[in-house]
């Protein structure tokens, strides 16, 4: 009786978990022939995830020997949501989107405008604003199908990759979709979304028989580096690794980065310095319609490898010169990034936003012309790099 009451009473939203499959990564592409949105959903294979022999029936008779622990399904539609719903006829279980962790946008779609996608993510209750957005360079379908070594599910791998990269390099803007939306809506600021580059597979030679032999060791299917520059909601171009690094300096977001200098006594030896912390300050100087930006960057570093015979054990002119060189490297990065941004006419650093925030009156005057002003804004860079420590040793082993 009780069970009946429960069954009849309120099953408006009951979803038995086994009737759902979880979309872990979603990709949107633009189908050029038809102009439709194309969605790829990477779905976790519910049986494959059970792991550790917890699958019913134990080992042995796993029945459906699906090769991958995930499955990618795609569909087209006039709108992003329409495309998502067009997946339903193709799947036997209900797609559940709340666990989506990565949003891949194809370059084509990004150049066309990402607003429909953003709107979908803001509006739909299952999709979250805390996904990691990336723009894919290359074939999106291939990316979604790719198996990442060490990861059972590609989308989880991508999501992990794009968030942990900040602990080692500053070549990829790590952010949630929330930030993208906020940035889009803020005046004098343009969006930068990280790039994921699909690496080409070595095609097996046509005609060559697929030899049984041992399987080849897997290759990384994609590379996480660089970023797509947007003006309004449309992508206008790519930034290289180094330019993204420059962007990190300006934004004060560089967390860990590796810089390579030539050794001071210039014997062709190189030394590596790792940035451990950085901060930046942006100060607009507005005189009439002349706008200048002052950017002050401070970076702290430590020496990582240095085999040149210099003695860096005590304070010396040598250390100070290293600091100066380091600052120059950083300055070069920043100049490259700023030049590229000005070329794209996309204020990814938020120069305009800093005027808006601190000099609101000037901004009301400038805002309509900011698109023209920004490419010509001179930027004064003041970089102070300081090497704080040398790691566990003071100098290399003296080879005798």
């Amino acid at each position, binding site marked *: 009786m*009780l*069970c009946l*009451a*429960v*069954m009849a*009473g*309120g*099953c408006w*939203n*009951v*979803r*038995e*978990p*086994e009737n*759902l499959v*979880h979309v*872990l990564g979603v990709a949107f592409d633009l189908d050029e022939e038809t102009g439709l949105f194309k969605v790829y959903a990477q779905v*976790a294979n*519910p*049986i494959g*995830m*059970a*792991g550790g022999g*917890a*699958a*019913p*029936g*134990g080992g042995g008779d796993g029945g459906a020997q699906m090769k991958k622990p995930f499955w990618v399904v795609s569909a087209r539609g006039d709108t992003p949501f329409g495309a998502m719903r067009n997946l339903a006829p193709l799947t036997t279980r209900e797609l*559940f989107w*709340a*666990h989506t*962790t990565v949003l891949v946008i194809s370059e084509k779609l990004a150049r066309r405008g990402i607003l429909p996608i953003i709107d979908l993510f803001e509006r739909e209750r*299952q999709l979250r604003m805390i996904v990691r957005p990336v723009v894919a360079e290359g074939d999106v379908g291939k990316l979604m199908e790719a198996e990442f070594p060490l990861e059972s599910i590609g989308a*989880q791998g991508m999501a992990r990759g794009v968030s942990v990269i900040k602990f080692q390099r500053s070549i990829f803007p790590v952010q949630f979709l929330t930030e993208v939306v906020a940035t889009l809506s803020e005046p004098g600021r343009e969006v930068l979304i990280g790039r994921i580059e699909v690496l080409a597979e070595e095609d097996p030679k046509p005609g060559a028989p697929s030899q049984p032999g041992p399987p080849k060791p897997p290759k990384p299917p994609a590379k996480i580096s660089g970023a797509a520059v947007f003006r309004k909601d449309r992508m206008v171009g790519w930034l290289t690794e180094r330019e993204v690094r420059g962007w990190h300096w300006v934004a004060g977001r560089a967390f860990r980065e590796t810089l390579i200098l030539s050794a001071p006594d210039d014997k062709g030896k190189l030394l590596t310095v790792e940035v451990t912390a950085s901060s930046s300050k942006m100060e607009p100087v507005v005189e009439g319609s002349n706008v200048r930006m002052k950017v002050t960057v401070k970076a702290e570093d430590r020496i990582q490898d240095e085999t040149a015979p210099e003695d860096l054990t005590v304070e010396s002119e040598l250390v100070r010169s290293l600091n100066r060189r380091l600052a120059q490297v950083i300055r070069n990065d920043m100049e490259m990034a700023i030049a590229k941004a000005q070329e794209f006419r996309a204020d990814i650093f938020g120069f305009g936003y800093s005027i808006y925030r601190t000099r609101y009156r000037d901004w009301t005057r400038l805002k309509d012309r900011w698109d023209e002003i920004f490419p010509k804004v001179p930027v004064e860079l003041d970089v102070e790099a300081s090497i704080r420590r040398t790691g566990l040793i003071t100098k290399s082993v003296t080879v005798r």
Partner: protein
Amino acid sequence: MLVRLVRGLLKAIKSQSTQPGRKRPEDGLFPNGLDISEREVVTGQLKLSASLETNLKNIKEATGDSVDLGIRRFRVGGSQVKGAIVYLDGMVDSRAIEQLIEDLTIELFKTRIDLADSLAVYEAAKETFVPQKSVEEVSDFAGLWDKVSMGGTGALFDGTNKALVIETRGWKTRSVEEPAAETTLRGEREGFIESLRVNTSLLRRRIRTPHLQIKSVFVGSLTKTEVAYAYIKGLASDDLVREVHDRLEKIDIDGVLESGYLEEYIEDTSFTLFPLMERTERPDRVAASLLEGKLAVFTEGTPFVLVLPTQLSTLLQAPDDYYERLPIGSFIRVVRFIAFTMSIILPGFYVAVVNFHQELLPTVLLMRIAASREGVPFPAVVEVLIMEFLFEVLREAGVRLPRAIGPAVSIVGALILGDAAIRAGLVSPAVVITVALTAIASFSAPVFSLAIAARLLRFIFIVLGGAFGLFGIQFGLLIMLTHLSALRSFGRPYLAPFAPLIARDLKDTLARVWWWRMTTRPKLDAFREPKRQGEGHEPRV
């Protein structure tokens, strides 16, 4: 009309046949067909007569000459005064009986009285025994039996229409042992037993002030069970004492075999799952409660003492909290609060989350749950209900079974059945984990009656969670909270000191403060004397 006539006729016949006043002489005291209430009336009216033989005959008749009734006749000092003692075998100390007979015959003989005068003998007997034993004088059968049935021995003398009742109580009781249902790691090992006197003595030994007062009431028309209530005069509210007394007096019941009977009679409302008084078999718990101005009700024949009024937070406190050092004492109490909450809502929450709010779970966990449910034939609600029901059966079986095979059943039940059910794909491991966790959590409630409340509530929450998700759980919580807010235990709000919020008393709820900081007693129970101990006595180096 005919019907009425017949009915009236029947009534007349019935009343004729059963009316005690119309008995025939050969029927003796109790004509055939007397019902119990009528017998009670007869025995209530039965006076002792001056003739020993009549008295003994009456006693035999009233008791049906039960096999355990012992009657020993004697003559005082070989004189003409006949006497007899009446007792119940097994309820008295046999040595005391021998001593008594010796006293009544030889010792009485030594006194220089006229041994032919039965009244003088009676008085002498009374005088002789007063200094030695507790002696009472009774003049009717009811009074005599009242004492005899409690282990007294009645001494009757020919020619006297009174009897002496001498205290010779000496039945076997269980010795004081560690309470089985309420154990502590640190703390006393003594627990109450079935004998009320022993129990009050256990309490007396802990609180020696003369102001610890114990009063008794007899409850039950047939069992005539002694019910005693204890309180500290001047600390407990007089109104409360009077109220408890009145409520106990008002009870009209034929028998009280356990304090649970009383509980249902004297609680404020019966329409609740929550215990409105604390039931304990630990003397330290009772003593601590009395020191806070509460009241304890002892019942003859059960080790369970009722402590009242009580609050929800008190029910979640265990003696260890106070005996262990402060940090660990407070910590285990917090753990217990969490466990109690878990034991109510965890299965319901599981069902709600799994069926409605999958987004709340971490991705990997959710997918594992989904994978483990692959092939399980029931919806999650049914699955949980089945497992919970199964667990209740196991638990009940475990209680009922003889001790020796109890563990065997739990092994079969928990390990084999659970494991086999998972292997067979009947239930998913996640559900087994949830149910087991809930069960373990429910064992942490220090007062068993509270754990029972949680058991029932759990089923309600499973159904609510399964039907309406977290929204249903919230609905259940709101109703439960309102119910708790409206509950009172002997007029005191059940949720105090949380609601109404009594900031001063929060010192001893989720966590406790140091003993030297507990300078005040709970406001509601001990409003007469809030100061418990002096301030500023913290240890100093």
